[in-house]
């Protein structure tokens, strides 16, 4: 089988807050249809890395390529166009509180992509149906459970037809019994060939689904490899310690 093409590539992303370097020369690339999973202790820089990728956080240095083209993020137009192609899922959902589920999904279709309202409504409904929220379309965020909110946010991102998705601990804010409904949506995305980078503490899910795991600590991507390799024979001492501990805490459960 021939190698799939690289969808997203980042090189030497660096971010400082004050004189603290929270992201140090992070580089990686994702190929079409791959799921890369970021794992590492809290404060290790996972969110910063993900937000630097679509420039919600401005890196001090580093370059990003999408589909082989460098993202010239200092040009506003280009930045906005790029962000449309990169879906982002946040730990605490970040739904728009004043809009219903379907309103959340269609608003960017209307005001960013310039779709007419009817078409946007149809597309938004279809996306919500796809994540199993057909009956909840007219509900406001406050009327939805955490798992439902996260699925709305996934539908909202998917409606923009992204070529890659960034998921920042999508299940960390959820009650345990709601985690699986979100993970199963992500599993479906993977099965349909969506390219994704996701940070998570769900070690079981990572082991089962990831093409590659990136272990991240203190702003550095310490080690990269297949789940099997990182779980069982990591090269780096820190990686081994971390995986021992996380398996203890989060178990092998999904």
């Amino acid at each position, binding site marked *: 089988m021939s190698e799939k093409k690289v969808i997203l590539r980042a090189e030497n992303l660096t971010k400082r807050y004050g004189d603290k370097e929270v992201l140090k020369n992070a580089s990686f690339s994702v190929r079409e249809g791959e799921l890369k999973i970021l794992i590492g202790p809290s404060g290790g820089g996972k969110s910063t890395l993900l937000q630097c990728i679509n420039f919600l956080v401005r890196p001090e240095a580093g370059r990003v390529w999408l589909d082989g083209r460098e993202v010239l993020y200092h040009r506003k137009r280009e930045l906005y*166009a790029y962000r449309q192609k990169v879906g982002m899922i946040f730990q605490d959902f970040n739904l728009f509180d004043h809009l219903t589920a379907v309103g959340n999904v269609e608003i960017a279709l209307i*005001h960013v992509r310039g779709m007419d309202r009817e078409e946007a409504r149809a597309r938004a409904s279809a996306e919500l149906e796809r994540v199993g929220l057909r009956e909840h379309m007219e509900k*406001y965020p*406050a009327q939805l459970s955490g798992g439902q909110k996260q699925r709305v946010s996934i539908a909202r991102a998917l409606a923009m037809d992204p070529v890659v998705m960034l998921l920042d601990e999508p299940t960390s804010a959820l009650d345990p019994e709601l985690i699986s409904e979100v993970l199963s949506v992500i599993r479906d995305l993977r099965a349909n060939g969506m390219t994704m980078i996701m940070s998570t503490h769900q070690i079981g899910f990572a082991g089962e689904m990831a093409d590659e795991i990136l272990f991240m600590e203190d702003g550095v991507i310490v080690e990269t490899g297949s789940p099997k390799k990182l779980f069982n024979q990591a090269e780096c001492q820190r990686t081994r310690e971390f995986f021992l501990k996380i398996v203890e805490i989060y178990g092998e459960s999904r």
Partner: protein
Amino acid sequence: MEELFFIQNDVAPALWKGLLVSIRLIVPSAAFGLVIGVFVGVLRVFGNPFLTRLADLYVALFRGFPLVVQLFIWYFGLPHIGIYFTPYVASVIAFSLCSGAYHSEYIRGALLSIKRGQMLAAKSLGFSKIRMIRHVVLPQAVRRALPGCGNEIIYLIKYSSLAYMITCIELTGQGKIIASETFKYTEVFMIVGAVYLVLTSAAAWGLHRLEARVRIPGFQH
């Protein structure tokens, strides 16, 4: 009986005329004030440093100067540099700018209360800053600011009575003329006061209705 005739023949027509002038002062001032308030509030939170400073300065000035002084400046002061306004126009300008300064405070507070995460989400979907403000931030901020802005409009109804100080003869002005012609100060001003009470109550009721209409389940005000 005589009293009633007096009210019917002399007071009512004059006050009615005054009331119409008051309404013509209040409605546009409230509308312009709100527009200015939203605009300035947004600049104060999302503007570049220069615009933010400018907007802060505007608010400091127009909240700091007594309103009567502002009226005097617009009407008596500006002619000295060759700018002339009719009493009515000078009043509307003064009221709008003063009201706008206060509205901007409420809008600013409401803007600052919108969760940052929602703005990140909007940006991640490709919203430009202006579109994000227009479609994500303001619809929420305006709802949150509504009680404060409503209060400001009720104040405006009352301070519109200052217009007579620069000879824009509205409700209070008419009341003062009749009262000094007839010496029935108590009766006339009781009626004038009652009319303002009706106006402010109507405004309060309308604002309440509006708040109820735009209420969203679970959305904290």
